[in-house]
């Protein structure tokens, strides 16, 4: 879909901070609040804005740490629908936080999140592996998150080291 430069600008601003007020966005793109509100609604309706997730570093919150695993899955594609049917089925499990079709040594890359190792093991052995057309799975547990969705976790980079006044 071809978007106007103002629509793209609004998307970029909201990608950085979706909590920013419509008033501020309107000032930044030199437009009216009414027009910005309409644009955002249109972008939501067109599913260009998909959702407004909040990026949280749960590892910092005691008792809320999740176990995350990335699973490489080999699948036999099905005549007529290829990988889509099985991928669609896997995507519906709430444990699955992301799912991609990949090129290379395996077909699907799945990220799942669980509270315990056992929860993940159960999902893989009882739900994922038993799906028809799934040939094999390789599970990798994520040990530490350094960067996610363009955001660097636990970096001192954002500190402003400039002097208060400079020429």
């Amino acid at each position: 879909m071809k978007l106007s430069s103002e629509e793209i600008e609004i998307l970029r601003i909201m990608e950085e901070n979706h909590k920013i007020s419509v008033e501020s966005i309107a000032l930044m793109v030199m437009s009216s609040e009414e027009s910005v509100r309409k644009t955002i609604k249109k972008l939501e309706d067109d599913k260009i804005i998909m959702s407004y997730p909040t990026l949280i570093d749960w590892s910092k919150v005691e008792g809320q740490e999740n176990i995350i695993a990335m699973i490489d899955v080999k699948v036999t594609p099905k005549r007529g629908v290829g990988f889509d049917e099985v991928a669609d089925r896997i995507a519906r499990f709430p444990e699955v936080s992301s799912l991609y079709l990949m090129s290379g040594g395996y077909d699907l890359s799945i990220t799942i999140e669980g509270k315990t190792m056992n929860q993940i093991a159960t999902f893989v052995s009882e739900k994922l592996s038993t799906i028809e057309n799934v040939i094999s799975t390789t599970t990798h547990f994520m040990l530490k998150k350094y960067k996610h969705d363009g955001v660097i976790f636990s970096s001192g980079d954002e500190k402003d080291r400039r002097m208060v006044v400079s020429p």
Partner: protein
Amino acid sequence: MIEDYSRYVSETGKELKPSGIRKFFDLAASMEGVISLGVGEPDFITPWNIREAAIVSLEQGFTSYTANAGLLELRQEISAYLDKRFGVPYNPSNQIIVTIGASQGLDLAFRAILNQGDEVLIVEPAFVSYSPLVTLAGGRPIPVSTSPANGFKVTPEQIEQQITSKTKAILLCSPNNPTGSTLTKADLEGIAKVIEKHDLIVVSDEIYAELSYDEEFTSFSSIKGMYDRTILLNGFSKGFAMTGWRLGFVAAPKPLTEVMLKIHQYTTMCAPNMLQHGAIEALRNTYHEVEAMKRSYRRRRNYVVQTLNQIGLDCHVPGGAFYVFPSIRTTGLTSEQFAEELLLQEKVAVVPGNVFGESGEGYVRCSYATSMPQLQEALKRMQQFLESRKLVSKA
């Protein structure tokens, strides 16, 4: 023990006025919790690929001197950059010198062209170093005042009024620090006619070239007939967020770079080797980051200008750099009073306009090179300041 050093200090050194910015820095630095709109540098940290290239060059042992004019490889990149971005071809082997920031480039330019008493026209409000550097080189800085009526742009007529038989050069800075005003190609063509008529040299400070928001930047040396009369200054500080690296460059006709290179080799030898490797990477692979930073500044400029106007401080829309220069005349305060009282009452640091020359009185410089939440808070505090003191006559 010597108690009085005045007989040892040079007359020129004595006469130099300390920068008004320094005074304000001391005051702001002594306070805690200050939101600063007083910084003249990007809030972005140098893109990682550039930092990494410098680290690698250190690992590989690039710790020696380079050629006086800088690494040939860097000069070739600068030459390609100037040609591709601004359409001004310079020979990397004898027309480009890598300097310690554009500031050293300015110093070289003035020392290379000025004899005792030569006059240099400085378009004001102006960056604080211009006049002192002219004085240090033995010249006389002559201010050419601009006004907000014309968006702080200098006109050919204003220039012509100040020209005397001693006028040697004019210094132009577009986009400008502190006003952010940007001269268009047509503006520059008008100025070029005066330059040619009076046989002047132009020192063109183009350090904010990458931060031109509303139209394509035009280099003065690309204007017809001006290539031979222009000393072009630029650098990595602003566009590439590399202020602390102190890397700039000067490009000029060969007879001028030859003189500048002699001064450079005796005073400085060369720019640091490892940092020049970072600069090569900056020019080769940082286009997307520069564009992204520029987009971010542009948004913030729009936000700040409109909000200042809403809270009652008249502000023109600057075409480039990362400063706005709102009028504070309606408050009845001088720019120093305004900045000082705003700092003490609301802990927001802005720079009084008078430090940039007489025509800056009645204005303050606010840098929007700081995060949106900080800008929002700073503007809220400025509004509180104006309201609490009933300082703005209009609603």
